[in-house]
């Protein structure tokens, strides 16, 4: 994610990171047995993460679109006006 230059790809990388975290949560919940049952807390958290990630993607895509409209580029290495 860090070495990518396109904002869109950075966003996609973020989504993959979240999915990886979700997968880890589900897997650990399956392995952590309490009285023969999995720990459902982990699986519950995954639903929250999916919901928040959906919202985040919506906002993030909107920002990327707005960025492209004003600057005609989404290459983050050229977007350094915050340093001035």
């Amino acid at each position, binding site marked *: *994610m*860090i*070495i*990518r230059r396109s*904002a869109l790809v*950075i966003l996609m990388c973020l989504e993959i990171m979240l999915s990886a975290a979700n997968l880890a949560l589900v897997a650990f919940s399956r392995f952590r047995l309490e009285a023969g049952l999995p720990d459902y807390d982990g699986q519950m958290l995954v639903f929250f993460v999916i919901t928040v990630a959906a919202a985040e993607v919506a906002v993030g895509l909107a920002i990327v679109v707005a960025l492209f409209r004003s600057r005609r580029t989404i290459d*983050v*290495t050229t*977007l*350094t*006006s*915050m*340093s*001035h």
Partner: protein
Amino acid sequence: MSPALLLLLPLLSVVVIFFGTKWSGTLSALVSVASVAGSLGVTLALFSTDSSMVAMNWIALGDVLQVDIGLRWDRLARGMMFVVTLVGTLVHVFSLAYMREDEAKARYFGCLSLFMFSMTGIVLADNLVMMFIFWELVGVSSYLLIGHWFTKASAADAAKKAFITNRIGDFGFLIGILMLFGLTGTVSFTGLENWLAGGHAGASAGLLTAAALCLFCGAVGKSAQAPLHVWLPDAMEGPTPVSALIHAATMVAAGVFMLVRVGFLIEASETAGLVIAWVGGFTALLAALMATQQDDIKKILAYSTLSQLGYMVMVVGLGSGEAAMFHLYTHAFFKALLFLGAGAIIYACHHEQNIWKMGGLKTRMPITFAAFGIGTLALIAFPFTSGFFSKEAILDIALHENKLLFLIAAGVAFLTAFYMSRLLVVTFLGAPRSEHAGHAKEVSVIMFVPLLILAFLSVVAGYKPVAELLQAQLPDVHWNWFVFFVSLATMLAGAGLGFLRYLDKRSEPKVIPVLANKFYFDEAYGWAVRNLQDGLAWVVRGLDALFIDGLAVGGITRLTEGVGCLFRRVITGNLQAYSYLFGVGVFVLIYFTVFLR
């Protein structure tokens, strides 16, 4: 009626003038005159009472320090108060005419009332702290009045000089008060007296001497003793009635009054007494020598005041406060008379002060001449005038206590007669030496009546019944024919020499540079300020620039700036760099929370 009224009347006048009648000079003048006349009336009415009262407990720090606002109304205060209010009243009345056409009459009379208030405070104070406060107030009012014509550069400079010179003395006074407090735990005169009477003094005689000498520093500044005398001649830049009231009769005598108030301390320390006596004697001689070569009528009188104050300080040091107060009391009358006389002359000659441009005023201003002549006779101690009795007492005490100082005092008596006869001859006799002097006319009634009252007092004030009546301190001296003849011989020799030398001269026959230039005191001080003080200031400024500005204040700003520069490199604006740093931060946080529990 209580002595507090004496303090309230002039204060009320100050308030009324500055907040009410400032727009009208005449009205302010009347308010001021009424207040001072009221003070005189109250003083006379309270002549037979004797009281001490504590008005309020001002500062109370447990058992450590008690400072009261209290009044002490004893014989010393009564005598001094009479002099202050009487001379004050006459000077106020004289000012009505002298300052008639002044633009800032309201301010002038307001300041005079402020002075009367402060002076009354010094006289009535029953402890050193309260006296010190009024002591400083007197300095302020003196500053305001010397600089009354502040648009004139010399007057503004003279006011500053007076104030700064006084501050040097007052610093010593303050240290002396603190030393006495540290030593005895009290600042009231009664407390100090009881402490001394309790026999505690033996163990700390050295400290006591130092404290007494520090207090004396205050008197050196206020009473213009050498080496802090330089401000008084310059103070003559003020209006002449001010010179008469403040710089001749009352304020400069406050130093002597203070020394007499703490006379018990000086008596307890032989060394302090000796130092004080010699400073006084030295000043008397120095000032009398300088007076012989001055050309400004007011400067001559100023140096004469210095010289007479030297007499008083000397005799305080020799252990006779009564003789000092007696001379203060007679001196106040004849010196105020001389100054007001000089004021009348200056007024008549259209503000000409150089005696070589006067002359021939005897026939033109006969009343002033008569009054001035009486003042001169009293000053040179002509037999059976008031000055004669007080100077006789001083010489008598000096003869008993210290032969060398007696010689100096006799020499000063000779010089006094010499320069006063010079002044009289040059100003009043001969032919007019300028147009203004030729057109001079006798001054108005309102001006010469105060002169006549003072002239009357200058003659009679020295007699015992009169002095008793007016609550003056009377020294316990016996008639001494030797002293009488010495005093008479010096007086006649000095006056005779002055008459012969200056009769019908048109200018100074022989100028002695060292005397005409006042022993180069001002030049020496100017040199010291330019080189020593400015050098010290340069060093201090360097240290300030190096340590305070360079390291403390400047160091902190440079440190902040440097750290800021360092962190500014982090703000690249690059999203990837931010997220990288963010990741590092997360790892650091995890490290701290998980592994460093």
